[in-house]
C-alpha cells in the first residue's frame, strides 16, 4: 500500500514544476520595479513538448531562464524532477537562437564536449557522438568547423550537443528565429521526430502560432508584460491532440490556430487600448 503510493508519487513527479512563480526586475536606472511575471503555475510532465507562446515582452524568456537557473524567481518556486532549481545544471540544456557552439571545435568535438566533461570513458563519448551525429543527419560533417556550416546545420549541432548531455529537459528560446522559413520548417519537422524518438521533455519558446501548433503537446499562451502595464501571466493552456507529423493545411490544425490567434489578438488589442 505504502510502496504503491510511493511508486505513484514517483511516476507523477513532473519534469518541471512552477509554483506561484513571479519575477520583478529593477529598471536599468535602478529606480523602478519591472514586474515581468506574476503567479505562474505550470507543471510540465515527463516527455511532454510544451510551447510558451506570446508576443514579445510577456516574459517567455524570463520564465525559461528561471527554469534554466539563470535567474532566481522573486516569488514562488521552480523545481526540476522535484528538486528546487538553485542555479544552472547539466540536467537542463539550453538551445539559443544564435547556436552558441565552440567555434574552435569540430562538429564531433562540440557534440562530445558534454559527455567528455562529465567524465565518460572515451569509447562512450565516441558512441554518443556517433549516435547524435546521425540523429541530426550530420555524419558527413563530423570534422567540419561550425563556421563552415549553414545556420540550420549549426543549430542541428547545438541540439545534438545538448541532447548528448542527456538533460532532463531541453529548453529552447526561439531556436529557429534566425533561420529562413524553408529551413525553419525542415528544422521543426526534424526536431519533432527527434523528440518523439528520444521522448525528450521540451520547453520551447516561440511567438509563431503555427510553430507552436505544429510542435506542442500543449500550448501555453502568455500575455501581459511590463509594456502593457500588467505582469506577464498565462492566458490559456491549450492541448494539441493531433497526430505527428501534423498537416499544417488541415482544418483541425487551422481551427487550433484560429483559437490561439483569437486569444493572442484579444491580449494585444487590449495592449493597444
Amino acid at each position: 500500500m505504502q510502496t504503491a503510493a510511493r511508486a505513484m508519487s514517483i511516476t507523477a513527479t513532473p519534469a518541471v514544476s512552477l509554483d506561484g512563480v513571479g519575477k520583478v526586475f529593477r529598471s536599468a536606472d535602478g529606480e523602478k520595479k519591472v514586474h515581468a511575471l506574476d503567479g505562474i503555475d505550470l507543471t510540465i510532465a515527463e516527455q511532454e513538448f510544451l510551447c510558451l507562446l506570446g508576443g514579445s515582452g510577456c516574459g517567455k524568456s524570463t520564465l525559461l531562464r528561471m527554469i534554466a537557473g539563470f535567474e532566481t524567481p522573486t516569488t514562488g518556486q521552480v523545481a526540476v524532477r522535484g528538486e528546487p532549481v538553485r542555479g544552472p545544471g547539466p540536467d537542463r540544456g539550453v538551445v539559443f537562437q544564435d547556436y552558441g557552439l565552440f567555434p574552435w571545435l569540430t562538429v564531433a568535438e562540440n557534440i562530445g564536449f558534454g559527455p567528455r566533461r562529465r567524465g565518460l570513458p572515451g569509447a562512450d563519448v565516441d558512441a554518443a557522438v556517433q549516435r547524435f551525429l546521425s540523429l541530426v543527419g550530420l555524419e558527413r560533417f563530423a570534422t567540419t568547423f561550425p563556421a563552415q556550416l549553414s545556420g540550420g546545420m549549426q543549430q542541428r549541432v547545438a541540439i545534438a550537443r545538448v541532447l548528448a548531455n542527456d538533460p532532463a529537459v531541453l529548453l529552447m528560446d526561439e531556436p529557429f528565429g534566425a533561420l529562413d522559413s524553408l529551413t525553419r520548417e525542415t528544422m521543426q519537422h526534424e526536431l519533432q521526430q527527434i523528440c518523439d524518438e528520444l521522448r525528450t521533455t521540451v520547453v520551447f519558446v516561440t511567438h509563431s502560432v503555427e510553430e507552436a501548433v505544429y510542435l506542442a503537446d500543449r500550448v501555453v499562451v502568455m500575455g501581459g508584460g511590463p509594456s502593457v502595464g500588467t505582469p506577464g501571466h498565462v492566458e490559456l493552456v491549450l492541448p494539441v491532440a493531433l497526430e505527428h507529423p501534423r498537416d499544417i493545411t488541415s482544418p483541425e490544425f487551422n481551427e487550433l490556430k484560429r483559437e490561439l490567434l483569437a486569444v493572442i489578438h484579444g491580449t494585444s488589442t487590449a495592449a493597444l487600448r
Partner: protein
Amino acid sequence: MTGGPRRIRGSQGREAFTTALVALGDYLPQPPSRPPAFTYALPDAAEPTRDGRRRADGPLSGPLTAAAADLRSGRISSVELVEQALLAVEKFDGELNAVAELLAESARRDASACDVDAAAGRWRGPLHGIPLTVKDVIDVAGVPTRAGSEAYLDVPTVDATAVARARSAGAVILAKVTTHEFALGVTSPQSRNPHDILRIPGGSSGGSAIAVSTGMGLGSIGTDTRASIRVPAALSGTVGFKPTFGSVPTAGVVPLSWTMDHVAPMASTVADAALLLDVLTAPDRPPVLDAAGAGVRGLRAACPRRRSPAPSGRSRRRCTRHYAGLRSSDASSPNAPVRPPRTSTPPTPPGW
C-alpha cells in the same frame, strides 16, 4: 561554405566559451553590461594633498580628482593636461619604455573637443577631459592591440567595454602602454622601474605603473589575473585596485584566464583609483569614491592565515601590526579564518 575555421579573437573566444558552457548548464551567464549613468558629484579638491592622504577636514584627493575639479572650474583645459602628459612621455619614455603606441594626434583632437564641450557647459562625465593610458591587452578602436607580443597583432574596430565606459565618462585616451608578453608574468622586463632603472617595474601592467607615476596621463586601465595590477602598483608606489571578479566587463580584452581576468584601475591615490573604478564598474554598484575617505567604521576586515604566501620579516610585522590596528579601531573584524571562495565558474582550461 568557406574553408578552414574562422580565426577567433581572444576576447571573442572567451565569450564563445562561456556561452557554450551556459548552453550546457555549466556556467551562469554574466548580466548584460549597461551604459553608465553618473549621479554623484566630484569631491571638492581645491586643495589637493600631494600624497593623497586624508586631510583632517576633507575627502581624499589626488592629481586626477584635482584635475577633474580644476577642469570644471575652468582653471585648466584638457588640451593643457594632454600636453603635460605628452611632455612626460617625451621626457621619460625613452629610458623607461612605457608606451606601446602613442596616440598624440587623436588625444589632442579629443582634448580640444572636450574643451569645446566644456565651454558650452556640456559635461560628459566625471572624467571629462582627463588623459588616461590603456594597457596593451585592452582594445582601443582603430589602434593595434599587440599584447606585448610579436606573435599577436589585431586592429580592433571597437573599444573594449572598459575603454568605452571611460570615454563616455569623458576620458581622453593618450596611449597604449606596455605589458609583459600576453600579460603572462609579473616582471614586464622590457620596461624599467621609474624609481630605479636597473629594476623591473613589475607587471604585467608595468606600463600602466610607469605612466601613472611619471605623469603620462592621470590614470591607467590595466588588468589583473594573478596580481598584474597589484605587483606593479606596489613596485612603483601607485595605487592599483583589483575589483571583484566581473564588476568590470572583460569584453575586448585579450584573455589570459577566462575565469580569472579582471580589468582594473591604476592611479596616483586611492581617491583617483576609486573615481576611475566607479567609471569602469557597472553603475548599479554603489560608488566606491564615496567610501574612499570614510574611515573604517563598520567595515569587516579579515586576514587569511592559511594557504597565503607568508611574507617575511619586515612585511610580515607590518601586516600583523596593521591588522591589529584595524581590530582595535572601529572596524569590526570577525577573527574567523578566511577560506578561498568557492566559485561556480569553470576551472581554467589546461595550459592557461
